[in-house]
């Protein structure tokens, strides 16, 4: 295999986004006729790496060699023309057009000056048959399942003579039979000499379909292994093997009564049979990979995501939470993951954002606002969290990510929550603010607030949590105390491999 020229070789690829290094001198070689898996935690740089291969991103430095020749992609079309096909998590089809046109969009067969539909359907049917799939090419893309849409995208890539097919988590929304069908297609492509790069978080899938695996961690290349000779322990070790020292450990807080108890909580298609309890003064970390259903559980607790089964008890009382307003009345607060969309009203001032959930406190009879009182409260809250700004009248949009997060926190703390749900509380914010947020969480726990913290950063989970839940595909797959938790155990639960 090493004798061959690789179909694609990436050499010392680096890429930064606004000062954050997404890729740092990454090397990878992929040969034709191999299925090459990319493995790594959330944020390890897998998606960025494949986007540099498909021309979506241009690397800051480093070279890309296609069949031994140095190339440069100025856009996705360049890469496509040079035989690189990509299938992203979200299918990018034309929902209003039928399968045949989706495959041949912009390249419809023309004879005698007009499009030859019959020939187009025949070509599409042939391509689908090559993949061993029976689908009527006249069906509109919007009526296809995700798996079928992926098949159409694969057919399109083949019709463009793709010799390298890149798939970003193609199995994440497929059922197990659909996954098997996809793997059958991938194996078939391998036989005809197509190279396939494949991202998946599910280790068992790598063992089922991949020939080799390259592991990335924090934007760095860790290593490449032959699947045949590698053990899961080693892969997990390579994924997480990071020193656990840059932590701001939680101070010990006295644990009080159980404030929140969830039994058998289920939202069909999102998560299933989730049960846990949370005590006053406790920080419960929820670990898992993106898409494991953690955020959906948080949304369900806050009345955004409807539940289909299970009960929620707050301070021993069973409650039905149907909307955020009810959740807030019960003493819940939710700091969402996406602060720009769900946490803040960007064009509004800091003061207006902070007082948004507690406006009723400043309402006089007749609906008039007591503006000055509201601003005073906002000013105190902003000072307490050390929001760095030109004043509380500054627009939220103009703040840095860290300060925006502080405003979101200030906003929810003003509601005096008993139960605080934090979804990725320190994603994308600087180290200093991170420390401040962690300190604040410790203080709140000391005051008896119960905290549910969703985080994809293992060091944060290990450092801040009294107890840790791990979720995978909508289920709780592990629960560890602070003492027994390790990165390896959590990653094993998150990727469904029993440790040892």
């Amino acid at each position, binding site marked *: 295999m090493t004798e061959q020229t690789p179909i694609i070789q990436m050499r010392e690829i680096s890429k930064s986004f606004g000062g954050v290094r997404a890729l740092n001198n990454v090397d990878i070689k992929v040969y034709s006729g191999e299925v090459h898996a990319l493995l790594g935690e959330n944020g390890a740089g897998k998606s960025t790496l494949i986007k540099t291969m498909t021309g979506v991103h241009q690397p800051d430095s480093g070279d890309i060699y296609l069949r031994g020749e140095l190339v440069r992609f100025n856009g996705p079309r360049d890469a496509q023309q040079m035989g690189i096909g990509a299938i992203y998590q979200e299918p*990018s*089809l*034309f929902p*209003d057009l039928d399968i045949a046109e989706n495959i041949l969009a912009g390249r419809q067969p023309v004879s005698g000056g007009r499009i030859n539909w019959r020939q187009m359907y025949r070509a599409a049917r042939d391509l689908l048959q090559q993949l061993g799939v*029976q689908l009527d090419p006249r069906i509109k893309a919007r*009526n296809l399942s995700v798996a079928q849409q992926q098949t159409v995208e694969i057919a399109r890539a083949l019709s463009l003579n793709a010799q390298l097919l890149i798939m970003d988590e193609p199995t994440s929304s497929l059922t197990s039979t659909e996954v098997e069908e996809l793997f059958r297609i991938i194996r078939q492509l391998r036989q005809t000499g197509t190279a396939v790069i494949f991202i998946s978080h599910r280790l068992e899938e790598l063992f089922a379909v991949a020939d080799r695996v390259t592991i990335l961690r924090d934007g760095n290349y860790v290593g490449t292994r032959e699947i045949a000779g590698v053990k899961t322990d080693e892969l997990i070790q390579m994924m997480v093997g990071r020193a656990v020292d840059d932590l701001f450990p939680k101070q010990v807080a006295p644990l009080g009564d159980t404030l929140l108890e969830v039994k058998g909580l289920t939202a069909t298609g999102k998560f299933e049979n989730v049960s846990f309890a949370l005590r006053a003064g406790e920080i419960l970390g929820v670990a898992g990979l993106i898409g494991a259903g953690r955020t959906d559980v948080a949304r369900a607790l806050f009345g955004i995501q409807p539940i289909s089964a299970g009960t929620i008890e707050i301070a021993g009382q069973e409650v039905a939470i149907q909307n955020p307003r009810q959740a807030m009345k019960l003493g819940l607060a939710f700091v969402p993951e996406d602060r720009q969309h769900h946490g803040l009203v960007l064009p509004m001032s800091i003061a207006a954002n902070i007082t948004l959930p507690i406006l009723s406190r400043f309402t006089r009879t007749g609906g008039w606002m007591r503006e000055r009182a509201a601003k005073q409260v906002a000013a105190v809250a902003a000072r307490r969290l050390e929001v760095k700004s030109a004043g509380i009248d500054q627009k939220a949009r103009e703040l840095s990510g860290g300060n925006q997060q502080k405003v979101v926190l200030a906003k929810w703390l003003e509601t005096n929550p008993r139960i605080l749900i934090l979804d990725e509380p320190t994603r994308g914010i600087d180290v200093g603010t991170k420390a401040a947020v962690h300190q604040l969480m410790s203080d709140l726990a000391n005051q008896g607030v119960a905290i549910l913290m969703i985080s994809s950063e293992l060091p944060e989970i290990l450092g801040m949590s009294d107890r840790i839940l791990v979720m995978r595909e909508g289920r709780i797959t592990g629960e560890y105390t602070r003492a027994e938790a390790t990165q390896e155990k959590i990653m094993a639960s998150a990727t469904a491999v029993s440790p040892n």
Partner: protein
Amino acid sequence: MNATVPKAQESRSLFLTLVRFRELSIIIFIILLIVIVSWNTPAFFTTTNFRTILLNISILSIVALGQTMVIITRGIDLSVSSMIGLVAMMVSFTVVAFPSVSPPLAILLGMLLGAILGSFNGLIITIGKVPPIIATLGTLSVYRGMVFLYSGGTWINSFQMPAGYRALAKADPLGIPNIILFAAVVILVVYLFLNYTRPGRDIYAVGSNPEAANVAGIPVQRTIFMVYVISGLLAGLAAVLWASRFESAQTNTALGFELQTVAASVVGGVNIFGGSGTVVGVILGAFLLGTIQNALIMVRISPFWQLAAQGLLILAAVIVDSAILRRLQKLGGIGE
């Protein structure tokens, strides 16, 4: 995927047949309307009246087809009525000043002027990056303003127009009035264009998923520019037919007509958010609109009520249509 093929395919084919006749619900609505109105107004269900309806919707169909192409690309062209007004005025002035200009030449001149006006819309939208609704709202006023500037507030009446020009729309050398033939030719050409040429298919691709269209190598901006030029060109053709049919060109010619073209498209099943719409649907939409207008006059509904009744019937048609469509999609078992 494979295992379920035989069963799935069976329900699929039924589903497909129904969806392909997505226009079925409009046809049903039209038939219902005709039956109800004919019941107490026998004069409604006659060849003469049918001919009147066709005459009335010929111009609407032509302009609505241009509008449809624009809407499929996720845009809208509100300026069509002003383009009609301006081109009608300019061409009429020209034929009055130069009676030697033959009717076919007048038609070509109208289409050329319309295409030029439409290309301004296209440039503002593609190069100026102005949202189509804003851009054409602007040119709606600009072009109407130019009608006043050009005509100086005067108008062309029937007596000033050369006979050949007046006969252009109404003469029937082939047994059918020319205006209906013009509409028929436009319908056929647009049908072939949208279904059998790459630029035509690109219109659907661009409206269905602009990013995917770009990656597939489809010239997105050029396609968007093109539909506004076509919309202008068809408005220009309609303008000459309008002036000929009504034997006049006035400053308020076609005022408010843009909404009828949008209504015909939407009633005809064109998705206002882009991506889909068929020629057959739009023609049926225009026919339904024409039938409603005609019926309301025939049953002697008070003129005060006519506009409101027309609007209510249009809303009813759209609601029924979308209800049927939702039903069909449920039956089809989408995403199995």
